[in-house]
């Protein structure tokens, strides 16, 4: 009897205690840890908690570091249960992709990464390498604001109605960069009397200018062409202005796409690139000319013009630390023979590790948005590269509420880079073509496709005798057999009908000459797969 009473009392006590303790334990938030790549998320290079007061004071002496310290403190204040750790991560080298793949397989990849080196969002999502962030994106004010402002940039981040990556505010348009001093010396001036190409120049103008700028005596060419890792991007840039399709529907229905390399207009693009080297003799080109090598040749004065992306080459405008002693300026890509020039602005696609737990994913997403589009960005100017690109169009900062008490001095790039601003404004006026991703048609195996294009165009560098049409057919066959041998899940002819109907309207409304001369025949021979 006594024993029963004691036992009963003990049980009652334990139950009471658990009712009291459990809520207290549950209320204490779990610390969520995750690793992030130390690129553009400055300030977390070491554990902030380990900084001494002296170190903080020392860091605050530099305006840039002061902002970073402030942003760090703000983040920790707002998210005390998050524990991010910065890790050194190779995001951009040629081996970056295999490193990331290996890390993903072994579970040591960072919480988020650029999708480019693993085939882009579409390929990576299809392979299960990216977390579904739809709900997080839909709940994020910053993301919603960005979607409203430039919706088409978000299209490639979605697949089958789900979101897998976020475009980061590093506006990348393909531009021609040129040496103003070389233009001046060659007597090439635009309508405003500036040593520059005409604003609305065409491929014909481009060739003529490049020839004028070529000087064998001075060992200088008018243009230097990408030769290896960025050659496919150069080909895409020229293809866009020629209105050449890189893929077309597979009318047999076996796969989704077929290579567009062997369409007449795409062959014309390849012929144009070959002629730049052999017929017009105004272009420096070689299969060993990488992105880096190409830039080096341009900076060394061996060419007067080159392709790059919009935030490259500070040059003539006052962009500190970016080649201010060379008169380098950007120019929009020339229009094609039928007057086509499409808005080719792209952004980096950042996706999240699909092996993260729900809590880790939320934490990583909050961290990312804080520094890329949220309060941290405004506090620390954490933009692509440095604060001198803040203020560029389409950066997410303009969509973030800017509380007065967090205001920091902004250096508007329009005041120190007015010419670059003008080029961007011009590009923004270019029409945006309908994107196939918006119609459930996405492209996988982009890296392999680019490699195939690279090999194709490289054959022209070795000899003037190469038959472009024959090569086009051969490389189209390779692409069809080894790269485009897949069918998108759920894809039907309706997807093609909707997409190409939209494309038909786009070209008819914006580029009537191209529409009459090229698009209609492409429609009949290649696009109408239903």
């Amino acid at each position, binding site marked *: 009897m006594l024993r029963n009473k004691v036992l009963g009392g003990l049980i009652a006590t334990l139950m009471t205690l658990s009712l009291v303790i459990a809520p207290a334990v549950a209320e204490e938030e779990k610390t969520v840890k995750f690793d992030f790549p130390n690129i553009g998320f400055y300030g977390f290079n070491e554990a902030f908690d380990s900084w001494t007061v002296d170190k903080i004071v020392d860091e605050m002496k530099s305006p840039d570091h002061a902002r970073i310290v402030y942003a760090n403190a703000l983040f920790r204040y707002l998210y005390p249960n998050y524990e991010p750790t910065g890790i050194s991560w190779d995001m951009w080298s040629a081996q970056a*992709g*295999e490193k990331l*793949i290996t890390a*993903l*397989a072994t579970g040591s990849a960072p919480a988020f990464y650029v999708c480019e080196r*693993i*085939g882009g969002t579409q*390929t990576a999502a299809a*392979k*299960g*390498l990216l977390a579904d962030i739809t709900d997080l994106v839909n709940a994020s004010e910053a993301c919603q604001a960005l979607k409203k402002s430039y919706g088409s940039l978000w299209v490639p981040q979605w697949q089958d109605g789900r979101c897998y990556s976020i475009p980061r505010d590093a506006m990348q348009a393909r531009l021609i960069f040129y040496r103003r001093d070389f233009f001046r010396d060659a007597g090439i001036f635009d309508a405003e009397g500036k040593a520059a190409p005409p604003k609305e120049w065409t491929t014909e103008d481009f060739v003529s200018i490049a020839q004028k700028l070529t000087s064998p005596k001075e*060992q200088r060419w008018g243009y230097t062409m990408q*030769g*290896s*890792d960025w050659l496919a991007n150069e080909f895409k840039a020229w293809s866009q202005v020629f209105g050449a399709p890189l893929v077309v529907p597979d009318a047999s229905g076996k796969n989704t796409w077929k290579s567009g390399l062997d369409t007449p207009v795409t062959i014309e693009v390849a012929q144009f690139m070959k002629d730049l080297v052999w017929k017009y003799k105004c272009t*420096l*080109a*070689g*299969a*060993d000319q990488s992105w880096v090598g190409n830039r080096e040749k341009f900076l060394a004065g*061996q060419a007067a013009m080159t392709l790059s992306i919009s935030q490259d080459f500070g040059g003539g405008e006052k962009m500190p630390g970016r080649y201010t002693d060379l008169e380098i300026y950007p120019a929009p890509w020339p229009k094609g023979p039928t007057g086509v020039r499409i808005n080719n602005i792209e952004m980096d696609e950042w996706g999240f590790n*699909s*092996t993260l737990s729900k809590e880790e994913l939320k934490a990583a997403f909050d961290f990312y948005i804080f520094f890329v589009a949220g309060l941290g960005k405004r506090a620390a100017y954490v933009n692509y590269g440095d604060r001198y690109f803040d203020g560029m169009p389409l950066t997410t900062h303009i969509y973030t509420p800017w509380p007065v008490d967090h205001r920091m001095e902004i250096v508007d790039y329009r005041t120190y880079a007015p010419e670059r601003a003008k080029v961007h404004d011009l590009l923004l006026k270019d029409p945006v073509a309908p994107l196939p991703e918006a119609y459930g048609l996405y492209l996988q*195996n982009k*890296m*392999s496709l680019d*490699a195939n294009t*690279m*090999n*194709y165009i*490289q*054959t022209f*560098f*070795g*000899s003037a005798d190469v038959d472009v049409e024959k*090569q086009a057919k051969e490389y189209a*066959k*390779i692409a069809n*057999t*080894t*790269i485009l*041998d897949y069918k998108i899940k759920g894809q039907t002819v309706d997807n093609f009908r909707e997409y190409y109907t939209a494309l038909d309207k786009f070209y008819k409304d914006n580029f009537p000459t191209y529409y009459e001369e090229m698009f209609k025949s492409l429609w009949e021979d290649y696009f109408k797969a239903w």
Partner: protein
Amino acid sequence: MPKTPRKELKATRKAAWLICLPGFLANLIFGWYPLAVGIIIAFQVWPIIGKAEFVGLTHFYKLANDPLFYKAFLNTFYYAGLSIALTFFLPIIISILLLEMKKGTIRVMMILWFLPMAAMSGIIIWKWFYNPYYGLFNGILTIMGLPTSRWLSSSRLAMFCIVLPGLIMFAPGLIYIASLQSIPSNLYESAELEGAGMWQKIWHITLPGIRPIIAMLLLLAVIGNMQVFDQAYVMTGGGPGYATTTVVIYYYNIAFQSLRFGKGSALALILGSVIMALIIIQRKYFKENINV
């Protein structure tokens, strides 16, 4: 108590196993295990994250219909053949002729031969030599009044350009020289007494004397050249026009560009089988010891 012969043998074997164990384990973990996994993956669609799916011979079928599969093998055989012809047999001849010279001359010639190897900063510098606009080779051709070449940008020349560095940097010449010096000199003296000329001595004494070394290095050369990757990847990336895309480069591209690890493993399995077949043929028809 002294150990019996049986106990001593047992102890020796135990010691031998213990000494060999780390190497054996390393071979097992880094050699056999990846091989076994690779073979399994060759029959699967293997995602980086998630569950693998067995697909049988699908990858092999796709490879059989893949034009790049045949091109890659053709390129690999071409590279291996060119490499062995230029960088394998040539050092044998050079080593033999070198030892016909005076001792002092031999030393100078060896320094001239091997110093570039030590000083070369690898394959990268050759890429600059081949630059069509300001590379060393085109510079020499220009000075001589000859037409320049596109070198690595030319589909016809690219593979030769990749093989060429091996000619200067090939180290087995040292092994041949060491091996040649181990042939007893009395054999040559006897041959001379019999009235044998230089070439007869080389054919009947020198070459049989270094036959085991040749066989071993040929085996390694076949295995190494069939798996060539570094030179082609660094200098051309497999281009131009897939002219230097070897089987291993193609495997690398399938795996890390298309993320198709199953297909890549199938290709690697086929390559491994081809190399095994070549080794079996070589071992059967090229006996190391002609007296066996």
